[in-house]
Protein backbone atom coordinates (compact mmCIF):
# COMPACT_ATOMS: atom_id res chain seq x y z
CA UNK A 1 0.00 0.00 0.00
CA UNK A 2 1.40 3.36 -1.03
CA UNK A 3 1.65 6.29 1.37
CA UNK A 4 -0.33 9.28 0.01
CA UNK A 5 2.17 11.66 1.60
CA UNK A 6 4.77 10.48 -0.94
CA UNK A 7 2.48 10.83 -3.97
CA UNK A 8 3.77 14.18 -5.23
CA UNK A 9 7.37 13.17 -4.81
CA UNK A 10 6.83 9.96 -6.77
CA UNK A 11 4.35 11.16 -9.38
CA UNK A 12 5.54 14.66 -10.27
CA UNK A 13 8.61 13.45 -12.19
CA UNK A 14 6.15 11.93 -14.72
CA UNK A 15 4.28 15.22 -15.23
CA UNK A 16 6.15 16.05 -18.44
CA UNK A 17 5.47 12.69 -20.07
CA UNK A 18 1.87 12.76 -18.93
CA UNK A 19 1.44 16.27 -20.31
CA UNK A 20 2.77 15.19 -23.72
CA UNK A 21 0.44 12.20 -23.64
CA UNK A 22 -2.45 14.48 -22.73
CA UNK A 23 -1.54 16.81 -25.61
CA UNK A 24 -1.66 13.94 -28.13
CA UNK A 25 -4.98 12.80 -26.71
CA UNK A 26 -6.82 16.11 -26.36
CA UNK A 27 -4.88 18.03 -29.03
CA UNK A 28 -4.92 21.34 -27.19
CA UNK A 29 -3.03 22.76 -24.21
CA UNK A 30 -6.05 23.81 -22.12
CA UNK A 31 -7.71 20.39 -22.24
CA UNK A 32 -4.33 18.70 -21.79
CA UNK A 33 -3.71 20.65 -18.58
CA UNK A 34 -7.20 19.81 -17.29
CA UNK A 35 -6.66 16.14 -18.10
CA UNK A 36 -3.26 16.10 -16.42
CA UNK A 37 -4.58 17.85 -13.32
CA UNK A 38 -7.53 15.49 -13.04
CA UNK A 39 -5.16 12.52 -13.50
CA UNK A 40 -2.94 13.71 -10.65
CA UNK A 41 -5.95 14.29 -8.40
CA UNK A 42 -7.36 10.84 -9.10
CA UNK A 43 -3.94 9.36 -8.59
CA UNK A 44 -3.54 11.09 -5.26
CA UNK A 45 -7.01 10.12 -4.05
CA UNK A 46 -6.52 6.51 -5.10
CA UNK A 47 -2.86 6.19 -4.22
CA UNK A 48 -3.57 3.75 -1.41
CA UNK A 49 -4.62 1.21 -4.05
CA UNK A 50 -1.26 1.55 -5.82
CA UNK A 51 1.14 -1.26 -4.98
CA UNK A 52 4.58 0.10 -4.11
CA UNK A 53 7.26 -1.34 -6.36
CA UNK A 54 4.96 -1.73 -9.38
CA UNK A 55 5.02 0.60 -12.37
CA UNK A 56 3.74 4.02 -11.26
CA UNK A 57 4.10 5.48 -14.76
CA UNK A 58 1.83 2.76 -16.19
CA UNK A 59 -0.60 3.24 -13.31
CA UNK A 60 -0.83 7.00 -13.98
CA UNK A 61 -1.20 6.52 -17.73
CA UNK A 62 -3.98 4.05 -17.09
CA UNK A 63 -5.83 6.64 -15.02
CA UNK A 64 -5.29 9.29 -17.68
CA UNK A 65 -6.36 7.02 -20.54
CA UNK A 66 -9.54 6.08 -18.74
CA UNK A 67 -10.35 9.70 -17.91
CA UNK A 68 -9.75 10.71 -21.49
CA UNK A 69 -11.90 7.92 -22.91
CA UNK A 70 -14.76 8.61 -20.53
CA UNK A 71 -14.67 12.35 -20.98
CA UNK A 72 -13.84 12.83 -24.63
CA UNK A 73 -14.90 9.69 -26.47
CA UNK A 74 -18.35 11.07 -27.25
CA UNK A 75 -16.82 14.02 -29.08
CA UNK A 76 -14.65 11.89 -31.36
CA UNK A 77 -15.53 11.27 -34.96
CA UNK A 78 -16.05 7.65 -35.84
CA UNK A 79 -13.17 5.96 -37.62
CA UNK A 80 -13.64 4.74 -41.14
CA UNK A 81 -12.12 1.28 -40.98
CA UNK A 82 -12.13 0.56 -44.69
CA UNK A 83 -10.05 3.66 -45.42
CA UNK A 84 -7.27 2.33 -43.25
CA UNK A 85 -7.53 -1.24 -44.48
CA UNK A 86 -6.86 0.07 -47.98
CA UNK A 87 -3.46 1.40 -46.92
CA UNK A 88 -0.67 -1.06 -47.67
CA UNK A 89 1.66 -2.27 -44.95
CA UNK A 90 5.07 -0.61 -44.66
CA UNK A 91 3.61 2.28 -46.64
CA UNK A 92 6.36 4.77 -46.05
CA UNK A 93 9.12 2.26 -46.62
CA UNK A 94 7.65 1.17 -49.93
CA UNK A 95 7.31 4.79 -51.06
CA UNK A 96 10.71 6.03 -49.98
CA UNK A 97 11.75 6.22 -53.62
CA UNK A 98 9.07 8.86 -54.28
CA UNK A 99 10.31 10.92 -51.34
CA UNK A 100 13.88 10.60 -52.54
CA UNK A 101 12.82 12.05 -55.86
CA UNK A 102 11.01 14.97 -54.25
CA UNK A 103 13.78 15.83 -51.84
CA UNK A 104 16.60 15.03 -54.24
CA UNK A 105 18.11 13.10 -51.39
CA UNK A 106 20.06 9.96 -52.01
CA UNK A 107 19.72 8.51 -48.57
CA UNK A 108 16.31 9.40 -47.25
CA UNK A 109 16.52 6.38 -45.05
CA UNK A 110 19.41 7.88 -43.13
CA UNK A 111 17.65 11.18 -42.65
CA UNK A 112 14.28 10.22 -41.29
CA UNK A 113 14.81 12.39 -38.25
CA UNK A 114 15.34 15.44 -40.50
CA UNK A 115 12.75 14.52 -43.07
CA UNK A 116 9.77 14.90 -40.76
CA UNK A 117 9.45 18.01 -38.58
CA UNK A 118 8.07 17.58 -35.06
CA UNK A 119 4.79 19.25 -35.97
CA UNK A 120 4.12 16.85 -38.82
CA UNK A 121 4.82 13.78 -36.73
CA UNK A 122 2.56 15.07 -33.97
CA UNK A 123 -0.16 15.93 -36.48
CA UNK A 124 0.07 12.50 -38.14
CA UNK A 125 -0.50 10.90 -34.73
CA UNK A 126 -3.17 13.33 -33.58
CA UNK A 127 -5.19 12.92 -36.76
CA UNK A 128 -5.56 9.20 -36.23
CA UNK A 129 -9.03 8.16 -35.10
CA UNK A 130 -9.00 7.65 -31.35
CA UNK A 131 -9.17 3.85 -31.42
CA UNK A 132 -5.88 3.81 -33.33
CA UNK A 133 -4.32 6.88 -31.77
CA UNK A 134 -4.32 5.57 -28.22
CA UNK A 135 -2.56 2.26 -28.98
CA UNK A 136 0.06 4.01 -31.15
CA UNK A 137 0.60 6.69 -28.50
CA UNK A 138 0.94 4.15 -25.71
CA UNK A 139 3.18 1.76 -27.66
CA UNK A 140 5.32 3.94 -29.89
CA UNK A 141 5.60 7.10 -27.83
CA UNK A 142 5.29 5.80 -24.28
CA UNK A 143 6.81 2.37 -24.87
CA UNK A 144 4.24 0.30 -23.02
CA UNK A 145 3.87 -3.42 -23.67
CA UNK A 146 0.85 -4.90 -25.43
CA UNK A 147 -0.29 -6.42 -22.14
CA UNK A 148 -0.21 -3.03 -20.39
CA UNK A 149 -2.02 -1.33 -23.27
CA UNK A 150 -4.65 -4.07 -23.30
CA UNK A 151 -5.27 -3.40 -19.59
CA UNK A 152 -5.35 0.38 -20.02
CA UNK A 153 -7.81 0.23 -22.90
CA UNK A 154 -9.67 -2.82 -21.63
CA UNK A 155 -9.39 -4.64 -24.95
CA UNK A 156 -7.80 -8.01 -25.86
CA UNK A 157 -4.11 -8.12 -26.79
CA UNK A 158 -5.00 -9.24 -30.33
CA UNK A 159 -7.07 -6.08 -30.72
CA UNK A 160 -4.17 -3.96 -29.47
CA UNK A 161 -1.97 -5.53 -32.14
CA UNK A 162 -4.39 -5.07 -35.01
CA UNK A 163 -5.16 -1.46 -34.03
CA UNK A 164 -1.48 -0.70 -33.68
CA UNK A 165 -0.79 -2.14 -37.10
CA UNK A 166 -3.58 -0.18 -38.74
CA UNK A 167 -2.75 2.99 -36.86
CA UNK A 168 0.89 2.81 -37.82
CA UNK A 169 0.25 2.32 -41.50
CA UNK A 170 -2.25 5.17 -41.60
CA UNK A 171 0.26 7.36 -39.78
CA UNK A 172 2.94 6.43 -42.29
CA UNK A 173 0.64 7.36 -45.13
CA UNK A 174 -0.03 10.74 -43.50
CA UNK A 175 3.70 11.39 -43.04
CA UNK A 176 4.26 10.54 -46.67
CA UNK A 177 1.52 12.89 -47.78
CA UNK A 178 2.86 15.76 -45.66
CA UNK A 179 6.35 15.25 -46.99
CA UNK A 180 5.17 15.07 -50.58
CA UNK A 181 3.01 18.19 -50.19
CA UNK A 182 5.90 20.07 -48.59
CA UNK A 183 8.36 18.89 -51.19
CA UNK A 184 6.09 19.63 -54.09
CA UNK A 185 5.04 23.07 -52.91
CA UNK A 186 8.60 24.18 -52.29
CA UNK A 187 9.46 22.95 -55.78
CA UNK A 188 12.94 21.71 -55.02
CA UNK A 189 15.44 21.71 -57.81
CA UNK A 190 18.21 19.19 -58.18
CA UNK A 191 20.86 21.69 -57.11
CA UNK A 192 19.15 22.78 -53.89
CA UNK A 193 20.76 21.05 -50.95
CA UNK A 194 18.33 19.63 -48.43
CA UNK A 195 19.84 21.70 -45.65
CA UNK A 196 18.85 24.89 -47.42
CA UNK A 197 15.20 23.90 -47.19
CA UNK A 198 15.22 22.63 -43.66
CA UNK A 199 13.89 25.98 -42.43
CA UNK A 200 10.55 24.98 -43.90
CA UNK A 201 10.26 22.68 -40.94
Amino acid at each position, binding site marked *: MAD*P*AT*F*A*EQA*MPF*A*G*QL*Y*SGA*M*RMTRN*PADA*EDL*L*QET*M*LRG*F*RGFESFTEGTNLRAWLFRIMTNLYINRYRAKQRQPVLSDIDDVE*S*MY*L*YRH*LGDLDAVFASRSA*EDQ*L*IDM*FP*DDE*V*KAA*LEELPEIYRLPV*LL*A*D*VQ*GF*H*YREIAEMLDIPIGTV*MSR*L*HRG*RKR*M*QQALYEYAMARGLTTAPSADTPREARSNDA
Partner: protein
Amino acid sequence: MPDCEETLRELDSFLDDELSEAGHDAIRQHLGGCPDCLGAFDFHAELKAVIAEKCQRDEMPSGLLSRLEQCLESEGLPSAAPVDDRTV
Protein backbone atom coordinates in the same frame (compact mmCIF):
# COMPACT_ATOMS: atom_id res chain seq x y z
CA MET B 1 14.17 -20.46 -39.81
CA PRO B 2 11.27 -18.21 -40.89
CA ASP B 3 11.10 -17.13 -44.54
CA CYS B 4 10.72 -13.49 -45.65
CA GLU B 5 6.94 -13.51 -45.45
CA GLU B 6 6.92 -14.97 -41.95
CA THR B 7 9.65 -12.58 -40.87
CA LEU B 8 7.85 -9.47 -42.12
CA ARG B 9 4.67 -10.64 -40.42
CA GLU B 10 6.53 -10.44 -37.11
CA LEU B 11 7.96 -6.97 -37.77
CA ASP B 12 5.69 -5.18 -35.27
CA SER B 13 6.07 -7.79 -32.53
CA PHE B 14 9.82 -7.95 -33.01
CA LEU B 15 10.34 -4.18 -32.83
CA ASP B 16 7.93 -3.90 -29.90
CA ASP B 17 9.95 -6.55 -28.09
CA GLU B 18 6.93 -8.79 -27.71
CA LEU B 19 8.33 -12.06 -29.09
CA SER B 20 9.56 -14.98 -27.04
CA GLU B 21 13.31 -15.33 -26.85
CA ALA B 22 13.20 -18.19 -29.34
CA GLY B 23 10.93 -16.23 -31.68
CA HIS B 24 13.18 -13.19 -31.43
CA ASP B 25 16.29 -15.26 -32.17
CA ALA B 26 14.67 -16.90 -35.20
CA ILE B 27 13.88 -13.48 -36.69
CA ARG B 28 17.41 -12.24 -35.96
CA GLN B 29 18.80 -15.29 -37.70
CA HIS B 30 16.75 -14.56 -40.80
CA LEU B 31 17.73 -10.87 -40.75
CA GLY B 32 21.38 -11.85 -40.54
CA GLY B 33 21.18 -13.43 -43.96
CA CYS B 34 18.57 -11.25 -45.67
CA PRO B 35 19.50 -7.65 -46.49
CA ASP B 36 15.99 -6.94 -47.85
CA CYS B 37 14.23 -7.79 -44.61
CA LEU B 38 16.99 -6.18 -42.58
CA GLY B 39 16.49 -2.93 -44.50
CA ALA B 40 12.78 -2.95 -43.73
CA PHE B 41 13.36 -3.72 -40.05
CA ASP B 42 16.03 -1.04 -39.71
CA PHE B 43 13.78 1.53 -41.32
CA HIS B 44 10.87 0.77 -39.01
CA ALA B 45 13.06 0.68 -35.92
CA GLU B 46 14.33 4.13 -36.79
CA LEU B 47 10.85 5.43 -37.60
CA LYS B 48 9.59 4.21 -34.24
CA ALA B 49 12.42 6.03 -32.49
CA VAL B 50 11.74 9.22 -34.47
CA ILE B 51 8.02 9.12 -33.63
CA ALA B 52 8.75 8.52 -29.95
CA GLU B 53 11.18 11.39 -29.77
CA LYS B 54 9.15 13.92 -31.72
CA CYS B 55 5.84 13.22 -30.00
CA GLN B 56 7.31 13.71 -26.52
CA ARG B 57 8.54 17.23 -27.06
CA ASP B 58 5.96 19.52 -25.59
CA GLU B 59 6.72 22.58 -23.62
CA MET B 60 4.56 22.67 -20.53
CA PRO B 61 2.56 25.89 -20.09
CA SER B 62 4.32 28.20 -17.70
CA GLY B 63 3.34 27.64 -14.10
CA LEU B 64 1.75 24.27 -14.81
CA LEU B 65 3.83 22.41 -12.26
CA SER B 66 3.10 24.96 -9.54
CA ARG B 67 -0.61 24.74 -10.31
CA LEU B 68 -0.44 20.96 -10.05
CA GLU B 69 1.33 21.20 -6.71
CA GLN B 70 -1.21 23.70 -5.41
CA CYS B 71 -4.03 21.50 -6.57
CA LEU B 72 -2.60 18.52 -4.67
CA GLU B 73 -1.94 20.64 -1.60
CA SER B 74 -5.54 21.84 -1.58
CA GLU B 75 -6.49 18.15 -1.45
CA GLY B 76 -4.55 17.87 1.76
CA LEU B 77 -1.26 16.60 0.46
CA PRO B 78 1.66 17.85 2.52
CA SER B 79 3.84 20.18 0.52
CA ALA B 80 6.55 18.31 -1.38
CA ALA B 81 9.95 19.62 -2.29
CA PRO B 82 9.46 22.77 -4.35
CA VAL B 83 9.45 22.16 -8.09
CA ASP B 84 11.19 24.63 -10.31
CA ASP B 85 9.35 25.11 -13.59
CA ARG B 86 12.49 26.33 -15.27
CA THR B 87 14.19 22.97 -14.98
CA VAL B 88 11.57 21.27 -17.16
